């Protein structure tokens, strides 16, 4: 009799407000992921908890290799994030984190579509509180945008699930055999949460808007949940190869010119998701292994990078490259951890990225996707450039900004240290990770070829950076924002709606102004439709209008 792990998180979230703030709560937050982990870490694969809802059978806990790997890394991430956030006393953030991580683990272990949908919505609803947790006006609106987009993903998923169940009669979450309308809707839903091109803006919008600790939590779950869902539902779907390739390319350009370093990390996240999506698209056992391994390592080193930037945000008050620099003097340990994270994401030999990214690259080459392979190579060089070099350089080195602050608090350093240890540990001893991958394929990343060529790629990229800096060609960090496709709903759509509404109002005013009769001028108060409180006359006018309309219609229709 095993209890689904998500119940621990849910129970924890309900119990948390009753625990006094301080050490007890922080310990509790560390305990919950550990307890939940024990429920499934040694469990043999299979289906466990079933339930009945709305007449359907729900499978609350399905454990196979894919689900196991993701559940494991989500639990580790929840633990590390709780350690990083030890000092937080904000109940809302803590409850939201518990519900969010629990829902993510629940979704990964969901065996059927309805359960998946419930947890999908839960992750969206819980995580928006982490965005709002910053408690500023900008964060409030950013959170609203985030919420709408995530719920849109949920709605698409709901529509797809309804259609799918209608068509096939089964609600099991397995690979979709063909691209029916239901499958397309579900793919779109997954794509939104996975930050597909043109559906990606929420990622760069919302993640930097959260608090120092909130962003670490946000980065770990939503997007990797989407990767899991894609790997489960659409492995081998060829269009994903090209979508993924696109995803690896466009963010690296933005990352170069972006000022907010946490937004650079968000672009970098998008780029790395592209690698995973390419792996899913290729669909061979090697590629899927690569995706899972990459997701595993990525959660760790991305969390590490966000942690280091979170520490900088906490102490220096900003993560804007234009305002930072010379922090190695005040925060050297944070710098070391940041460099370790940077080396991991760049896939330096002896770090975790090296042993995971190569799986995907090998698979791409083996299947003959030459252009895609070249694009991935370019993306690898690019990611080293903006995450490997730019972030540590502009935050901790570059010109001295004059900021002197304390080093990060002990809990942040410990969390970063543990994560860094894992990154390096997996890099040096990849076999334990390879053992939990879905397919049993022997792979040896440390061949002379691979090490030398990767070092070539990376160090020549570093050389390019140095040359560009020395010649002054490299663009400086400037306080700015860069436009992206979200300008459609952030600027154009509101302007368009206001313009239309204004036009309608103008039109009505221009018609009614020549009218002499006072009573007809009441039409001008069209604003009453939107809630402005006008006189009874206007109200009655609408009654009259509707009555006339209805009477005419009944006469005409019969």
């Amino acid at each position, binding site marked *: 009799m095993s209890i689904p792990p998500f119940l621990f998180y849910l129970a924890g979230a309900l119990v948390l407000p009753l625990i006094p703030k301080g050490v007890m709560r922080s310990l509790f937050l560390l305990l919950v992921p550990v307890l939940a982990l024990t429920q499934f870490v040694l469990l043999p694969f299979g289906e466990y908890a079933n339930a009945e809802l709305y007449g359907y059978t729900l499978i609350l806990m399905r454990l196979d290799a894919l689900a196991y790997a993701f559940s494991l890394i989500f639990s580790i991430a929840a633990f590390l994030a709780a350690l990083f956030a030890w*000092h937080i006393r904000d109940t809302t953030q803590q409850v939201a984190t518990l519900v969010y991580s629990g829902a993510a683990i629940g979704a990964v272990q969901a065996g059927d579509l309805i359960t998946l949908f419930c947890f999908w919505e839960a992750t969206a609803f819980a995580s928006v509180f982490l965005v709002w*947790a*910053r*408690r500023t*006006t*900008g964060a409030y*609106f950013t959170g609203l945008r985030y919420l709408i987009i995530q719920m849109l993903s949920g709605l698409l998923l709901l529509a797809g699930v309804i259609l799918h169940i209608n068509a096939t009669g089964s609600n099991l979450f397995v690979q979709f055999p063909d691209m029916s309308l239901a499958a397309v809707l579900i793919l779109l839903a997954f794509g939104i949460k996975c930050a597909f091109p043109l559906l990606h803006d929420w990622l760069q919008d919302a993640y*930097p*808007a959260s608090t*120092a*600790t909130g962003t670490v939590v946000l980065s770990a779950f939503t997007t990797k949940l989407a990767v899991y869902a894609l790997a489960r539902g659409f492995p081998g779907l060829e269009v994903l190869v090209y979508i993924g390739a696109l995803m690896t390319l466009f963010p690296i*350009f933005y990352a*170069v*010119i972006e000022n*907010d370093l946490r937004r650079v990390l968000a672009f970098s996240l998008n780029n790395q998701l592209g690698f995973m999506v390419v792996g899913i698209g290729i669909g061979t056992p090697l590629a899927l292994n690569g995706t899972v391994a990459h997701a595993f390592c990525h959660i760790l080193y991305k969390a590490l990078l966000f942690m280091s930037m979170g520490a900088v945000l*906490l*102490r*220096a*008050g900003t993560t804007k490259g234009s305002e930072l620099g*010379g922090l*190695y*003097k*005040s925060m*050297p*340990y944070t710098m070391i951890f940041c460099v370790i994270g940077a080396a991991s994401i760049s896939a330096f030999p002896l770090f975790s990225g090296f042993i995971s990214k190569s799986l995907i690259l*090998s698979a791409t*080459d083996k299947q*003959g996707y*030459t252009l895609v*392979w*070249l694009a991935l*190579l*370019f993306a690898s*060089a*690019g990611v080293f450039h903006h995450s490997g070099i730019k972030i540590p350089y502009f935050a901790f*080195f570059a010109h001295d900004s004059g900021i002197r*602050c304390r080093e990060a608090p002990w809990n942040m350093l410990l969390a970063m240290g543990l994560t860094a240890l894992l990154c390096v540990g997996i890099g040096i001893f990849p076999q334990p990770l390879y053992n939990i991958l879905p397919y049993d394929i022997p792979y040896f990343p440390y061949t*002379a*070829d691979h090490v*030398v*060529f*990767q070092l*070539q*790629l990376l*160090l*020549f*990229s*570093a*050389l*390019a950076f140095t*040359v*560009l800096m020395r010649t002054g*060609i*490299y*663009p400086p960090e400037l*306080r700015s*924002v*860069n*436009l992206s496709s979200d300008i459609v709903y*952030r600027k154009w759509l509101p302007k368009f709606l206001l313009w239309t509404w204004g036009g309608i109002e103008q039109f009505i005013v221009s018609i009614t102004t020549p009218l002499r009769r006072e009573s007809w001028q009441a039409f001008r108060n069209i604003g009453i439709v939107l809630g402005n409180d006008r006189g009874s006359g206007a109200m009655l006018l609408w009654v009259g209008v509707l009555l006339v309309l209805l009477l005419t219609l009944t006469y005409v229709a019969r």
Partner: protein
Amino acid sequence: MNEQPRFLLSRLLQRIDSPLGAKRIYYVLLVVCGLLVVVGALIPHHDAYGMGAIVARIPGFYGIYGFVMCALLVLVAKALRRILMRPENYYAPHAIDSEEIQKDGESST
């Protein structure tokens, strides 16, 4: 800026945080890159397939690819900046970019 930072590590790093130090790093990097090209040409290539096997025979392919693509990346990004860059308060107050800096803000909310 002559004050001594508290940490040993920082003091060590301060030694290279100077124009001379940066130049030294640059030269070291050049040398290492050259060495890598040489080593890359000499080692046996066993396990590459497809395109990987072809480019493996070109000495320094990965290096040149990395250098060129990175340089292109930066140049294109710089050009993109001309089209895409906007002042920080472009989306204000609906975004966080132009918000006030808060030091040690949310340490114990």
